[in-house]
């Protein structure tokens, strides 16, 4: 396996589609009328960028042995339905110990004007 700490992936644009937000809200027991659920960031921030890590041949993440161990979202504000945000992921750290690999993956989501919206920090553990 290759350690890929510091790797930065290309920024990804994501449209905050109202129907998608509503479907997501219902799936976590929230009322879509209340607004964008905080953890919709799992879609527009983490979800928009983590596939780049998972499909990176050099990162060689064994997806079938991957566990999502920790997650943090920090919000400057929440996106509005109908707006387009930009998310960029990077590998903050990549270490191995006792047969386990620990990958810290951070994503910064910004709005059209470049202002911060959300920061996602995910810790993935890959069992060998």
């Amino acid at each position, binding site marked *: 396996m290759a350690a890929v700490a510091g790797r930065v992936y290309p920024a990804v644009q994501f449209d905050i589609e109202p129907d998608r937000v509503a479907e997501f809200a219902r*799936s976590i027991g929230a009322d879509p009328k209340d607004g964008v659920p905080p953890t919709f960031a799992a879609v527009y921030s983490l979800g928009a960028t983590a596939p780049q890590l998972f499909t990176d041949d050099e990162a060689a993440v064994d997806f079938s042995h991957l566990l999502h161990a920790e997650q943090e979202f920090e919000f400057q504000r929440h996106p509005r339905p109908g707006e387009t945000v930009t998310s960029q992921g990077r590998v903050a750290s990549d270490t191995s110990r006792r047969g386990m690999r620990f990958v810290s993956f951070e994503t910064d989501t910004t709005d059209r004007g470049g202002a911060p919206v959300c920061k996602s920090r995910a810790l993935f553990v890959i069992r060998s």
Partner: protein
Amino acid sequence: MRERRVTFTHQQIATYAEASGDRNPIHLDDGFARSVGLPGVIAHGMLQMGLLGTVASEAAGGPEHVTRLAVRFAGMVVPGDTVIFKAEPAGDGRLELSATNQKGEAVLTKAVGEYR
């Protein structure tokens, strides 16, 4: 305090997989899940965090007030498990958060919630 008691089902996990776009077969296919050493399909950690985020949003006065959410995914949740998600304002813009299963085990730990 906001509280929600949720008994997880295959259908609910499949619905979350569609809504979130996370269609990892460990959440959808019992046979595949067993082949990688799991007891069968497991709920997404992010589905658990999402449900906790829903009660946190209610306790904060609306999702737009939530400024931070963090958890450690400490325990597997499988169909048939019942988890109680709780959120309560704890002063200074902090939320006291918990997610406990029917055995009294915390399935989410180190939970942090902040709002303004």
